[in-house]
């Protein structure tokens, strides 16, 4: 996709040479990890195309949207309500944070020992590698974890366009009041930036678009319960990653078309791996695109990932929100309530997440759970203990992984994951 977009990238202020390098690495990784998979559904072709145009055609679309007077809103967290962004005719984009890039530049501002996701979003910006962040009119951050909230201060110094939502860390009455007020404040901010009022009609329309998108993602998630699994975990993860930056209406259509195909696969007993293949649920820190490392290791070891209890996964679509508000005020309250059902480890206590993991393991017939924490992602690293204790009650095998985006620990991770699968298989045989 190189030459034809060069002018656009230059005008966005990207570092052309480094960006070219990044695209080459991405293409290779995608070839090795994705296109080499066997038995992929036809419907994945659309998502392959989206990835091949991730910094190309999609950016052209965004530029066109901007020319029509629309604003681009970059986000890093599920807690930023997409309904509100769509209600001001905005485009919601989950920003780049899933690869080791711009590390040297990022480390001018950040400590070396910080979570890879934070280092990556700073690196993408500082190295001039993310056309999305360059296209954004407003970057909406949130105070989920200490690393992010402090990094946003610096990101704002550099870009001058960061707005931060204050997240409660307890789902108490006071916490809820704070969150409701933060949602109303965001609505006002979006109106100010876009110059568009949020009307009831707009809010209902926006919520209907998001409702359809969540419904499609729920449908995909439910199909993964079948044995044999009709789609690989890698492909399902990719779709969840794409959900953060594709056009939501088109994305929904494409996911539903894929699900029609998967329906037929399930009916005919067709899968990506033989029936009886060990099934794994992954739970923990988000896997921002193009972070495919753990799924590639797990599925490369002869198993299938059947679900992600993750922000890039189930947490994104688990709770629906009925798009029939009676007033803007009621709509904002309903939105605030819906978002507080997301069980992020930044909350204390966070027992809901433990129940979610149990329920998913059961529903998806997972034989084991792999807990994934990004190194230095303290909330998930610490919560891993509770997850382990809770899974122990139902004797579901559990493995804890802490890693980052680098490839240096691939050998160790592979040994751990393979040994875990051996333990699972021994358990299945008994």
């Amino acid at each position, binding site marked *: 996709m190189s030459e034809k977009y060069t002018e656009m990238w230059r005008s966005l202020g990207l570092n052309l040479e480094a960006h070219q390098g990044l695209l080459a690495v991405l293409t290779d990784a995608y070839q090795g990890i994705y296109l080499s998979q066997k038995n992929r559904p036809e419907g994945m072709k659309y998502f392959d195309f989206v990835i091949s145009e991730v910094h190309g055609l999609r950016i052209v679309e965004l530029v066109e949207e901007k020319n029509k007077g629309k604003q681009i809103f970059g986000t890093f967290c599920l807690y930023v309500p997409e309904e509100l962004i769509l209600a001001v005719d905005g485009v919601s984009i989950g920003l780049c944070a899933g690869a080791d890039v711009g590390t040297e530049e990022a480390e001018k501002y950040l400590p070396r020992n910080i979570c890879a996701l934070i280092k990556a979003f700073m690196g993408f910006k500082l190295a001039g590698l993310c056309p999305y962040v360059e296209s954004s009119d407003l970057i909406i951050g949130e105070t989920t974890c200490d690393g992010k909230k402090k990094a946003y201060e610096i990101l704002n110094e550099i870009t001058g366009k960061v707005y931060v939502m204050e997240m409660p860390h307890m789902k108490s009455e006071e916490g809820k009041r704070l969150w409701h007020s933060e949602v109303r404040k965001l609505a006002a901010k979006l109106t100010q930036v876009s110059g568009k009022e949020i009307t009831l009609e707009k809010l209902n329309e926006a919520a209907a678009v998001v409702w359809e998108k969540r419904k499609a993602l729920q449908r995909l998630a439910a199909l993964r319960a079948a044995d044999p699994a009709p789609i690989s975990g890698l492909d399902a993860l990719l779709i969840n990653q794409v959900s953060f930056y594709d056009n939501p209406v088109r994305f929904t259509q494409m996911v539903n078309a894929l699900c029609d195909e998967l329906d037929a696969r399930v009916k005919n007993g067709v899968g990506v791996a033989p029936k009886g293949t060990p099934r794994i649920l992954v739970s923990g820190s988000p896997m921002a695109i193009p972070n495919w490392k753990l799924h590639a290791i797990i599925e490369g*070891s002869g198993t299938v990932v059947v679900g992600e209890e993750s922000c890039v996964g189930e947490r994104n679509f688990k709770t629906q929100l009925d798009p029939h508000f009676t007033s803007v005020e009621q709509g904002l309250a309903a939105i605030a309530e819906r978002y507080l059902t997301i069980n992020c480890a930044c909350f204390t206590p966070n027992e809901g997440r433990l129940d979610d993991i149990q329920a998913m393991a059961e529903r998806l017939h997972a034989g084991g759970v792999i807990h994934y924490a990004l190194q230095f992602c303290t909330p998930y690293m610490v919560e891993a203990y509770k997850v382990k204790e809770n899974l122990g009650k139902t004797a579901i095998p559990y493995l804890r992984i802490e890693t980052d985006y680098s490839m*240096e620990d691939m*050998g*160790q991770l592979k040994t*751990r994951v393979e040994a875990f699968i*051996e*333990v699972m298989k*021994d358990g299945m*045989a*008994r």
Partner: protein
Amino acid sequence: MKSGGIDIGSRYIKYVILEDTNLSEVYKLETGYDPLGTCRDLIDKTKPDRLLATGYGRHLLQAHHEVETITEIRAVARGARAFFPACRTIIDIGGQDTKVVQLDGKGSVAHFEMNDRCAAGTGRFLEVMARTLGFDLADFGDHCLGNGDNLTISSLCTVFAESEVISLIARGVKREAIAMAIHQSIANRVVSLVKRVGIRDAVVFAGGCARNRCLQKIFAEKLQQPIEIADNPDILSAYGAALMAREAVSNSSPD
């Protein structure tokens, strides 16, 4: 029938041949820069009827010779259990990994833990430290003096730990006392892994570092129980792999 188990570790390749159930040949060669060549030579020389690969380099052999693989965790479990039928906990300190494995009553792996990505708490750590202090790795454990009181090596990282050691040397601390502190540092790290997994009798210490008498002693003290060590502790994984090759359980390999 000849069954082979080959354990391609980060530092050494260990290779065991069983004639039926009897241990007939044992090899230990440096992994070096051409492990595949070394493995080929060994296989050509011994011509096993069945072969199973384990260890860090297992996939290398799998990719080039379609040899089935198992992880070193399962292999060491099988090998340790063959030598010590009552074994329920294994501490295996290899070149770049430290593993603690808990077995159920039948000898299957119940839980395991491995060190984090860095080399602290592994054989490599001991090797670097022995060199820094001018000792041979082979008898490093025999040069520890005192009980390490007043001295601690606290760094999480081998490189930083080495500079801690160098600053102790610069302070004029006897190298035997530093050696003790180093052994305690590695042992503390391993013991925390053991506690995470949970300890059950009997405890077997495997891997090349199991020959280190100072580590043996510290583990016995800290875990408050006797530690079982095979005469040839670094071949337990290869031995386990050979036994499993013989039993033709290779079809349960994950790949």
